[in-house]
């Protein structure tokens, strides 16, 4: 439950082993590279590498093969692959050529099939023509055109009655007339133009269509079957070719991807060059988790010119140590929420356990229902198992919390008295311990929510104090609004309020107010100069002048006091959601009663699902909001640098 300890790694070696070293770094999956700034003092001795990737083109061609073949890119173990670079290139070229032949052949067949289908459609519409096609097409002095014409244009044909053509419509629907027209051979161009302007669409009857339309149709149908069979055979052949070579292609892909991605690390490499350099040497720096030191070094065992040098992570101030959160199985899923806010600094604290516990409890309080909680857990489990969603894991946990609090509220899918016998049997209670919508209970719930909020805010402030002391920020720890001064102020005011409201004891005497309220506010007011005084061991005048300082600090203090009030009151929403959840289930059951006995169960089911979806989502977001605004803002900066080791992804993205 902390931040992973890191080690600064320096990798030094001869240029000849650079590619292999980069491959090891990428393949390890734990190396976080850093860009080494080149100091002007070193002059031209060190150069950054800017070489092209010689594998990029081959990789692209392999990716094209995968896309064309419909094979999903995935990792395959390529250790047994014996092909070198040249052989891989030859194979890719050859396979691409063989694969490319199929689309052309299949495309040509598809076109032929489409034409025949069109001819069939046309023939369907001219079935009433009981004349041999051979006789029609053999006409020497007449030209014939089969096709279709839009209905609107058909109606305009009467305007062309003086033109030399004969027109016959066989069939029509709302939009088109299927037809034929004849014209003398010497006038055919003019008539064709005329019909073209009327949007006549010519359908060519194939040369091999003989006999009457029905005979031609039978023949074309047979041809169509043959063409389809040929097409199917070609497709099977293509699929077989792909299936036989898919493993090899994936191995080649994996190898090329690995090498290609590792070469992207070259931008982090410095090479020492120059006239007095005997052998070119490369330098690279990065971070790895401390626990992986041995394994990492071992991976470079075969590269005798490469040295791995480990140093403490903060020894080089040029590099900000990346942060990897380390949490146990229960808290780990909540890292997603922490990372949404920011990553803690290396010397900071990991708020994940705190968030995990508070988030789970708060959600449970706001969404307490035994049945719905269990269902949320089940849904979360399905989401995790099926879609590998991290949110599913979180739902499994908060669902359990919801179920636990549901037991307290006595609610099971909105049925408020189902657990009464259990309470009676186990605890001897006549009814459930908490009835949210009971008038007496409402105030208790709301006040409890505020009390919980106070506890959480105080805890956050204590975290902040500890953290600042740890980081030697004594000024902030003592005088900050979230430091000891703020803690005393807030704690005192809350104590006074509680004593006054609950026990009618007034402790707001000068003896209390002065040290517990006024003094902390004053210290907060003077936080900045006092902090500087602690650091520099002397009191200094403010840079912008005393007047400006007083004005700014006054408004800041005003904001501090207001924020304490607003942050505290913000926790009322926790109580509010308890009540609204009960209220919404009440509505569901009211509607179910109104729907009658037949529709009762469906309405209850749909109502439950609706409440779970709507209120579950809102409650989840509201708790997160409380975490970020009311708690994190007090102790967590989130200005750390994320640990991003180089990894090789075998999925296709825009870059591929």
């Amino acid at each position, binding site marked *: 439950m902390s931040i992973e300890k890191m080690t600064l790694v320096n990798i030094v070696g001869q240029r000849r082993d650079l590619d292999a070293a980069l491959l090891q770094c990428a393949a390890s999956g734990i190396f976080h590279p850093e860009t080494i700034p080149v100091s002007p003092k070193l002059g031209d001795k060190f150069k950054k590498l800017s070489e092209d990737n010689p594998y990029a083109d081959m990789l692209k061609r392999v990716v094209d093969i995968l896309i064309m073949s419909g094979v999903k890119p995935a990792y395959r173990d390529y250790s047994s692959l014996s092909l070198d670079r040249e052989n891989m290139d030859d194979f890719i070229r050859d396979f691409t050529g063989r694969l490319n032949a199929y689309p052309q052949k299949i495309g040509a067949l598809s076109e032929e099939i489409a034409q025949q289908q*069109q001819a069939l459609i046309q023939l369907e519409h001219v079935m009433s023509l009981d004349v041999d096609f051979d006789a029609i097409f053999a006409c020497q002095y007449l030209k014939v055109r089969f096709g279709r014409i*839009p209905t*609107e244009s058909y*109606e*305009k044909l009467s*305007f062309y009655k003086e033109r030399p053509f004969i027109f016959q419509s066989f069939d029509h629907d709302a939009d*088109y007339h299927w037809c034929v027209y004849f014209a003398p051979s010497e006038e055919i161009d003019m008539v064709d133009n005329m019909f073209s302007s009327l*949007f006549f*669409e*010519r359908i060519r009857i194939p040369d091999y269509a003989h006999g009457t339309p029905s005979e031609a149709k039978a023949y074309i149908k047979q041809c169509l079957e043959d063409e389809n069979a040929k097409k199917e055979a070609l497709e099977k052949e293509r699929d077989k070719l792909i299936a036989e070579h898919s493993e090899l292609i994936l191995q080649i892909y994996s190898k090329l991807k690995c090498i290609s991605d590792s070469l992207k690390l070259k931008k982090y490499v410095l090479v020492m060059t120059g006239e007095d350099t005997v052998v070119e040497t490369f330098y690279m720096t990065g971070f790895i988790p401390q626990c992986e030191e041995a394994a990492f070094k071992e991976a470079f065992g075969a590269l005798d010119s490469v040295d791995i040098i480990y140093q403490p992570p903060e020894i080089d101030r040029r590099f900000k140590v990346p942060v990897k959160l380390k949490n146990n199985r229960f808290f780990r899923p909540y890292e997603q929420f922490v990372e949404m806010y920011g990553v803690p600094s290396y010397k900071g604290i990991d708020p994940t356990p705190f968030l995990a516990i508070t988030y789970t409890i708060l959600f449970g309080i706001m969404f307490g229902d035994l049945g719905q909680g269990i269902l949320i857990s089940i849904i979360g489990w399905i989401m995790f198992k099926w879609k590998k969603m991290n949110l599913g894991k979180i739902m499994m946990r908060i669902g359990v919390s919801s179920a636990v609090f549901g037991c307290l509220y006595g609610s099971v899918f909105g049925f408020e008295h189902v657990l009464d016998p259990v309470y009676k049997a186990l605890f001897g209670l006549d009814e459930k311990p908490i009835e949210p919508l009971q008038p007496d209970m409402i105030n208790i719930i709301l006040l409890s929510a505020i009390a919980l909020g106070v506890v959480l805010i105080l805890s956050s402030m204590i975290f902040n104090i500890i953290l600042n002391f740890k980081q030697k920020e004594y000024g902030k720890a003592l005088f900050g609004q979230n430091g000891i001064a703020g803690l005393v102020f807030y704690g005192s005011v809350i104590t006074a309020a509680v004593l006054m409201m609950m026990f009618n004891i007034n402790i707001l005497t000068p003896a209390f107010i002065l040290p517990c309220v006024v003094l902390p506010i004053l210290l907060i007011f003077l936080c900045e100069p006092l902090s500087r005084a602690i650091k520099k061991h002397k009191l200094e005048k403010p840079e912008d002048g005393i007047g400006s300082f007083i004005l700014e600090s006054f408004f800041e203090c005003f904001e501090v006091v207001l924020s304490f009030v607003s942050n505290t009151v913000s926790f009322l929403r926790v109580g509010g959601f308890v009540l609204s959840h009960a209220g919404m289930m009440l509505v569901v059951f009211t509607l179910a009663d109104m729907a009658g006995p037949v529709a009762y169960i469906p309405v209850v089911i749909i109502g439950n699902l609706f409440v779970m979806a709507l209120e579950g989502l809102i409650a989840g977001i509201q708790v997160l909001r409380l975490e970020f605004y009311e708690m994190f803002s007090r102790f967590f900066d989130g200005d750390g640098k994320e640990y991003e080791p180089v990894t090789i992804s075998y999925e296709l993205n825009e870059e591929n």
Partner: protein
Amino acid sequence: MLNGYSSNAIMTKARAMYGKRLTAADFQELARKRTVGEIASYLKSQTYYAGELRNIEEHMIHRGQLELLLRRSLFDRYSRLCAYQYEKDDGFYKYLIMFQEKRLIMSAIRLLNSGSPQDLILEVHNYLQQHATFDLFALASVKSFDDLLEVLKGTVYYAGLKGLGPDEGSMIDYNACEYALNTAYYSRVLHLIERHAGIPKKAQAQLRGIFLQRVELMNLSIIYRLKRFYHTEAQQIKKQLLPFRYKLNDRQFEELLNARSEQEVLELIGKTTYGKYLVQQDFKQIEAFMANAQYQMTKKLIHFSEYSPVVIAAFMWQLQIEVENIVSIIEGVRYNLSPSEIEAQLVG
């Protein structure tokens, strides 16, 4: 007359239909097609023209047929909206039909002059015939100017064309007829807007603005063209300008008329309220400038107007521009222009 609630519903419907229009990405895709069939296929499968194009055969469809179907779809959408908006005898909604009628009459005159009036039948379409104020098929049958006048008797176009019959052996004065028809058309539309029952004054002003801006842009186009191609004198140009004003005053028009070159005309336009549309383009064609100005104005009205007649009218302008853009793409593809050249022709 429709009450406020149903008027809002129609506005919402018009805006929803507007939301389904073609996007810049669609136009880019279309400009990259290589044949009319590919364009038809894209429109049929990827856009809201799928309904109108459901029965076409993409690889066989004629270019003209595709354009006809697109224009008809425009009219169908308009009819659907108007069915809710206007009363049966309300004449304003017919402005779109009148626009087509005007265009057909101009085509008839052009074809009479060229000696092939029978070709007008190719431009007459059934969907217009049902709504036209005269028999379009009768118009397609005219053989002379007198026949034309006979067909147009009783319509708003008759009075303007009556005295423009050609002398024996001469051609019909096309420009004079165009002037007369445009004047008749816009006078009629503006009259209908004023007479339209139940439209608030502000809506009337916005509707008038749509048409008057169009006219004013046409006048600017006339001035530019006559200066550029014919170096015509100011007084001659003035006779050709349509008698409507919108945003430009008489002084600005006088300056434009007295400009010494087309460059000066452009500079003067740049100083007017239409100048902002000028600088946005390369200004290769005056029509593009006009279309862009109209596009921007109607786009703004669709978003911000509170009146359904205005939103409908603005929406129809936008649809017309969209169809013209598709037609430009079809022509560009037919003439093997590059995608960038095609895209440069598009408006909006």
